[in-house]
């Protein structure tokens, strides 16, 4: 059995972040990356662009083809981990072989949540989180077997899938259980603007609905029945409600799980020398000052990076992340971070700029003179300056009246409160 100083399960944002951090401080310690997918590390958020032919297959890859070789990483790909042997400090693979570790990072990611829907056993449906999902859908598009699709879920994944399919000329209906699309990410007004953009393209959006049954004939889907009885014709159904932590490997083990794997600010699990990051873990959120699932690419990468440093003996804390999303629908950009509405029972000052004609919307949530939430629609430039103020918990009293200005930037912030590079470098 090979034993590696660092064993990383997962070959996506978190795992790669860890490899890069480890190699920054330890050029010799052996590293292995293990994944049940056989691909070189690729960018999951790009699958909708790949579907749309906006990005070629060879541009899907997150790092260059010589990435593993250059960093002396053993890439064990296409092999599934089935068990952690805590006594032997080893991972048991599906074929019975074992891979030993001195320290282990669990960056196993998330898996699509698929609710039980009548008709699912008989009729085919797709999920949309992996390259394989995208390749399968591309095949169907290429051979002309789908002309229309119903997407269950109006979140980021569902709407990006809609955008990708739209580019291929598919007739689309998005069914969303909540009262608006993108409900975890945007408030009512912002979501309304995006819905308008999407509907103007001809995509149907149905909030307050869900699919009751997938129906068809001779084993082939030909429509869905909604909860309120309405029928929508379609050739395929895509389930994109969300992802949940992929934690089957740690179930019934000494590693503590809540909704995801429990970690501290050093990304350590409750078992020594075992770390976790990304979609499978409950990580620190600097706005909530608490731990929660944050299944996002940037937070997975930075969480993995912090885990990597700690695994290599360089102690660092992960205090970088909160809910943060930047996405573009048909050229219409939206960015949000932190709170989007005040949570129940909390008083917050809310500043809003709402210009429906120009389709511009901005919102800041302020508590004790600190920004704790932001939404930018269509006017997103320098949004990071605000996120920086949120992270630094800067008292914005001296420039509160200016934060809504279109050209708000560093110059409006008093020099002593500006974040210069030295402070930044000390942070991650």
């Amino acid at each position, binding site marked *: 059995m090979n034993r590696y100083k660092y064993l990383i399960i997962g070959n996506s944002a978190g795992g790669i*972040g860890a490899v890069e951090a480890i190699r920054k401080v330890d050029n010799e310690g052996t590293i292995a990356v293990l994944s049940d997918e056989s691909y070189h590390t690729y*960018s999951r*958020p*790009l699958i909708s*662009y790949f579907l749309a032919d*906006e*990005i070629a297959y060879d*541009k899907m*890859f*997150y*790092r260059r083809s010589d990435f593993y070789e250059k960093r002396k990483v053993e890439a064990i790909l296409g092999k599934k981990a089935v068990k952690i042997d805590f006594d032997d400090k080893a991972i048991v693979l599906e074929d019975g072989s074992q891979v030993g570790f001195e320290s282990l990072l669990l960056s196993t990611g998330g898996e699509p949540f698929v609710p039980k829907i009548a008709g699912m056993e008989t009729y085919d449906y797709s999920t949309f989180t992996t390259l394989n999902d995208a390749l399968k859908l591309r095949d169907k598009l290429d051979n002309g077997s789908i002309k229309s699709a119903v997407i269950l879920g109006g979140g980021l994944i569902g709407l990006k899938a809609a955008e990708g399919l739209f580019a291929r000329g598919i007739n689309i209906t998005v069914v969303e259980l909540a009262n608006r699309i993108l409900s975890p990410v945007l408030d009512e007004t912002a979501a309304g603007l995006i819905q308008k953009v999407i509907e103007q393209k001809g995509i149907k959006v149905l909030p307050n609905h869900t699919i009751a049954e997938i129906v068809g004939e001779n084993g082939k889907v030909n429509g869905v029945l909604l909860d309120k009885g309405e029928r929508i014709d379609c050739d395929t159904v895509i389930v994109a409600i969300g992802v949940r932590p992929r934690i089957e490997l740690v179930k019934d083990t000494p590693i503590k799980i809540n909704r995801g794997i429990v970690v501290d600010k050093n990304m350590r699990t409750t078992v020594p020398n075992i770390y976790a990051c990304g979609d499978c873990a409950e990580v620190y959120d600097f706005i909530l000052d608490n731990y929660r699932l944050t299944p996002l*690419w*940037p937070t997975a*990468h*930075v969480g993995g*990076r912090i885990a990597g440093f700690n695994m290599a003996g360089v102690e660092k804390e992960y205090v*970088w992340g909160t809910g*943060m*999303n*930047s*996405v*573009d629908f048909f*050229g219409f*950009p939206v*960015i949000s*971070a932190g709170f989007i509405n005040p949570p129940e029972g909390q008083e917050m000052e809310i500043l809003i700029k709402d210009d429906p004609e120009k389709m511009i919307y901005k919102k800041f949530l302020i508590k004790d003179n600190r920004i704790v939430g932001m939404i930018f629609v269509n006017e*997103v*430039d*320098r*949004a*990071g*300056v605000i*996120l*920086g103020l949120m*992270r630094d918990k800067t008292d914005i009293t001296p420039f509160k009246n200016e934060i809504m200005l279109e*050209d708000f*930037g*560093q*110059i*409006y912030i008093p020099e002593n409160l500006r*974040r210069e*590079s030295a402070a*930044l*470098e000390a*942070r*991650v």
Partner: protein
Amino acid sequence: MKRVVSNEEVCIGCRLCEVWCKVQHSKSKDIIKAFKKETPMARVHVEERGAQSFAVQCRHCEEPDCVYSCITGAMSIDEETGQVMHDPEKCVGCWTCIMVCHRGAILRDERLRRIASKCDLCPGLDIPACVAHCPNEALCLVEEKSE
């Protein structure tokens, strides 16, 4: 690590840095042709408030949030120079880098397709165009040793 820093005490807000950045990143590299026949875009922008002004451009941070957050791998660190590089061919214009750049130094280039745009320290030049043409030496190229 090289980076351009701005001394706001002496910046006069003339925006010549933006002009010469555009010229340097134009096809012709000729100021007349660039402005008449091309649609050049500056990778530096001057922030102004009353009499106060300074140029903002990518600081090529040692721990760059844009690189760590980039969903495609378009942003990367050049291993030899430590510079923060941007590969337009891998960029899809999701603006995640704009969301995390605390300096507000990344701009949207929507001329052909949507991609991020930022200071590349003028490859091929010893002194970046903005520094070379700053009339008041408000912009300086500094080199800091990395850890």
